[in-house]
């Protein structure tokens, strides 16, 4: 994997295509009942995560909510491991135990996939705290929705981050809705980014449909944090084309609104920018798209052919090996002897 600074835009366009084609396949497989539980698609928001990833190094940390397929893919988790997770297979990125909402990939510094709204925002502080503690210059990207900013955990986390000057970037993916509740109906402020001000955290707004805008803004923020650790807040204005989850018909919003954002599609936009600048031909684009579709298709085959997690392993992940030598430790032995003596 290339360091982010050198990742070229054509590659990032390809990543957006991969995310979209992957999720289109996932949607189809969900309808065919190959995927269970809740499944939330990211389609429409691709520029946010790809733009952000393009601004960081591979060893930086990321953590997100339950709309997480794209974040894992963007980090480098294979489409195979992602699809297998959706299918609940042993080869999935969480061994088929987590499902759509709980993607994890330690190797790629993807710290989840968290399904309780707001609950992972303090975790991001913990990741960032550990980096600072160890004198590492990593940054942590914490993605969450507009719905999460009204949870207590969010507010507590922002205050902690500011107080301890933690190297964490809070990225609010404002897609205007939390399920059926629009931002105006959930949030007392006109602008979400203003929340940051209350905690003395520098904030900015980016056009979440524009890859370059996201990347360039984030790059500046990241650079400043690496020099001198501190938290930052980025409100990315974006839109999800699909319903909240596979079961949501999204009747709370208008067709016009959806159309408006579709016309502003992040993939179309970057493609146009690159074409205009002579960095991309139509043939090359078609080739990229074909490849993305092929990888998505292959991932379904891979998932289908993979094994289920074995039943015998049901209890394997409830507790980690205690790490303590087996047997009674000297301290307990002594107190056991004391008790025996006392009862005599």
């Amino acid at each position, binding site marked *: 994997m290339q360091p982010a600074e050198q990742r070229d835009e054509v590659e990032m366009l390809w990543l957006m295509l991969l995310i979209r084609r992957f999720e289109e396949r996932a949607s189809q497989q969900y309808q065919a009942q190959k995927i269970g539980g809740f499944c939330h698609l990211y389609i429409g928001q691709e520029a946010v995560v790809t733009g952000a990833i393009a601004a960081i190094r591979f060893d930086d940390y990321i953590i997100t909510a339950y709309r997480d397929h794209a974040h894992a893919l963007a980090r480098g988790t294979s489409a195979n491991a992602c699809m297998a997770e959706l299918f609940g297979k042993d080869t999935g990125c969480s061994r088929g135990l987590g*499902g759509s909402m709980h993607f994890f990939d330690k190797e790629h510094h993807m710290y989840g996939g968290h399904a*309780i709204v707001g609950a992972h925002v303090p975790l991001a502080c913990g990741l960032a705290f550990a980096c600072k503690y160890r004198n590492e210059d990593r940054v942590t990207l914490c993605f969450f929705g507009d719905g999460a900013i009204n949870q207590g955990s969010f507010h507590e986390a922002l205050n902690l981050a500011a107080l301890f000057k933690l190297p964490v970037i809070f990225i609010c993916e404002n897609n205007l809705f939390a399920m059926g509740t629009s931002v105006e109906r959930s949030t007392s402020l006109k602008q979400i980014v203003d929340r940051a001000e209350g905690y003395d955290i520098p904030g900015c707004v980016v056009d979440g449909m524009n890859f370059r805008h996201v990347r360039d803004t984030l790059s500046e923020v990241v650079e400043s944090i690496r020099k001198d650790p501190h938290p930052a807040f980025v409100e990315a204005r974006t839109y999800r084309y699909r319903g909240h989850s596979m079961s949501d018909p999204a009747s709370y919003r208008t067709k016009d609104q959806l159309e408006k954002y579709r016309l502003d599609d992040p993939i179309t936009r970057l493609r146009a920018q690159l074409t205009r600048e002579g960095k991309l031909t139509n043939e090359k684009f078609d080739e990229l798209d074909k490849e993305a579709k092929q990888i998505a298709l292959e991932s379904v085959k891979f998932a289908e052919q993979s094994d289920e997690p074995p*039943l015998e392993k049901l209890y394997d992940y409830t507790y980690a090996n205690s790490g303590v030598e087996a047997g009674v430790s000297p301290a307990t032995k002594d107190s056991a002897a004391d008790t025996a003596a006392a009862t005599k």
Partner: protein
Amino acid sequence: MNMREITYRQALNEALTEELARDPNVFLMGEEVAEYKGAYKVSQGLLERFGPKRIIDTPISENGFAGLGVGAAMVGLRPIIEFMTFSFSFVAFDQVVNNAPNMLTMSGGQFNIPITFRGPNGPAHQLGATHSHATECLYANVPGLKVCTPATPRDAKGLLKTAVRDNNPVLVLESELLYSSKGMIEPAEMELLIPLGQAEIKREGSDVTIVCYAQTVALALAVAEKFEDEDISAEVLDLRSIKPLDERAIYDSVAKTHRVVIVEQDRPFCGVGAEVCYRIQKNIFDELDAPIGRVSQEDVPMPYNERLEKAVLPNEEKLIAAVKKVCYA
């Protein structure tokens, strides 16, 4: 009397409608309860009928709106607080467990808290570890809270109405898997109140008692039916309320059958079954002809994989084995 068939979802909707109509102090608050009509469409039509003053959408702030409910109850309103699922009630745990039930004692009897917390509880289907909690044992552990777990449309309506009228914090633990299930119920114009702490025999039997509640009632009934062919007559006792617990009904049934299996939807360690089991052996030990059987979830966080999830949950196979064991069959 003309009984009719309705869904569990409709039954809850009727209960809400009737209680909102009866008492202007009652209001419904929660995520997506108004304009979206509830994540599981339980509050259909309520916004239109009662307006946004009483049917209130909230931001995703469980701790905040649960606490708001407790405060409003201190000064005489009767909030119905919906958790989209009880797995999310953990965000509001402090309000439900510390503020609501302790207030009466701490204030020396000055402030009772007439609040209802309701919503789906227990594992649904492949929702994974964070979204599959069966919370009844956690909440029943707290003095000052009442906990009921309706399994049928009739019980859902009768218990929810009673909960709203109770002067204490009551949790009505519904079930996503039951919302579309159907059952017979009294005509709409009849007032239906089912007391908390009253179990119901859902099926009479003489050889073994299966104690169950919520999602496990249908399971127990199906298994009881299967045992008919083997000449084992199983009585199915639905607790309906976890707290208060109808001990009398349990003892009466066990005194008749002398054998008992508890099938619960929560986890085994410190679960509902453990408490029921303790009380049976303490109070009617001599009536038992066999050690008490218990079927519950496996003691693991819920896996997403379908086959593993099935292995974690109580199922027919496990219940049949447990019944056979206590019947020495």
